[in-house]
């Protein structure tokens, strides 16, 4: 068997049919995306998608109006009624918050239910390195910056869903 002198791996590795299939999936994905993007970048597609959106919104509007009429006939609050109520509630909520904030300012009260506060005295690593020169010189900082196990848990290249 022919081996690479440095790595000891076969110099002429056998073709892995599954690796080839994975590569084919990736290449096909790129090519098809390219073809679709060229097609969808045309004025014809923009016009067609505009018509589709127009039809979809009209259908949605008709559905909403019909549902509203039906709910009114059944003497049940519609979404519009609930929204109006929610708007009034939000307004009351906001007014209450403004009053609370004013009160807090007036009596000089600090925020309540605050967890124990850590000291806000942390210095950047560069300054800490200067202060602890001998130790810092042997400690690569960015390796430490990655949370333990983060590489393993992130799941590879992962999907790029949107």
């Amino acid at each position, binding site marked *: *068997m*022919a*081996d690479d*002198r440095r790595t000891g791996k*076969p110099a002429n*590795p*056998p073709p*892995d*049919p*599954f690796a080839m299939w994975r590569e084919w999936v*990736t290449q096909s*994905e790129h090519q098809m*995306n390219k073809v*679709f*993007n060229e097609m*969808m*970048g045309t*004025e014809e*597609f*923009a*016009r067609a*998608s*505009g*018509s589709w*959106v*127009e039809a*979809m*919104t009209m259908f949605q*509007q008709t559905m909403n109006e019909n549902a509203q009429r039906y709910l009114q006939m059944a003497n049940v609050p519609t*979404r*519009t009624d609930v*929204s*109006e109520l*929610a708007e009034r509630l*939000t307004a009351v909520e906001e007014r209450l918050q403004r009053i609370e904030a004013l009160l807090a300012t007036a009596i000089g009260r600090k*925020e309540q239910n*605050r*967890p124990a*506060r*850590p*000291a*806000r*005295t*942390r210095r*950047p*690593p*560069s*300054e800490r390195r200067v202060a602890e020169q001998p130790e810092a010189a042997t400690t690569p900082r960015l390796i430490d*910056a990655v949370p333990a196990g*983060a590489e*393993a*848990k*992130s*799941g590879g*290249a*992962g*999907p*790029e*869903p*949107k």
Partner: protein
Amino acid sequence: MTTATAAPGAVSTPGEQPAGPVNPAPLDMSGVAESVRREMERTFRRSVKGLEYISTGDPGVGLTAKDIVHSRGALRLYHYRPRVDEVYRTPVLLVMSLISKPYILDLAPGQSLVEFLLDRGFDVYMIDWGTPRPEDKRLRLEDYVLDFIPECVEVVHRRSGEPDVSLVGYCMGGLLAALYAALCPDAASGGRLRNLACFTTPVNYDGMGLFRTWTDPAHFDVDRIVDRLGNVPPQMLYASFNLLRPASQVAGRVRLWDNMWNDEFVVSYRRLQRWAADQIPFPGECFRQTTKELQQQNLLMKGEFQLGGRVVDLSSIRVPFVHVVAEHDHIVPYEAARDLVGMVGSEDREEIMLKGGHVSLVAGRNAVRRLWPRLEEWLAERSV
């Protein structure tokens, strides 16, 4: 050099010459057999794991401990509980996009930018815009930039006791943060803003590729959509994002099946897929405003974009500024994002281009290795 007949694992000595003519090495078919055996084993595990995949729910997301310190309508301001005894003086406020949920920055332990920043000594807050309700259809960019963000910044100030704050915005959140920075006074002028970091933030909408074509006013009547529907339904946004890379949906499913034996891949896939599908409605008036004034007329780039009666001049941003862009971003292409760093007026400003896409820039293995340490480094120097 060893010959094809040498025992496996035999190692040649340096300087050894071939004894005769060199023949092409024959293929080692035992490797193919091994590959087939491995795939057979994986196929069995795929079947078992596939059943598990169908029968179990989505993994939990956004689990880092936090308190809701302010709420208004759908908006929630989170303060994440500190995880170290000593933090940097300046708190960090994360600003999310209006069209996606904020847990992409806090996916899971070990995959959370929030957790990373906490562990590296930052005091972290986040604005979650929530899910817009029907009555939120009247919200405009003015509400977000001139009302909600300043209010949250004040809450952070009151809670932390610190006079200033660093803003970090992702995607459209970066745009909101930049607009706030341009229109509200910074820390040096009696305001609260100390540093500004934006990730993949569009400013030149001529560079928005297919989105630009699809929203051409000749074919896309935004007024009719908003007048009819109020808020723009999430399905419409999700469909438009998917259309940018239609084949990737199929390829993603194929890769999921291929990696079904790998628990880590599956969990990561499900978390990201859940986030991608977990779209929220876009407030109607805000959609009308961004589509007409930014997407169709590109007013921000022309220096004619107005909010609250004031022209937005990004050159009035003077605070330290960094813009991180992704090399393979298909949602906000580089052509749409590259002008931002040149438009701000800060002396201390830089653009960092990292490998990856729109999502993998901030979440996943690449983000852990690339963006997060760079952000920590940049913020740490400017947060004391």
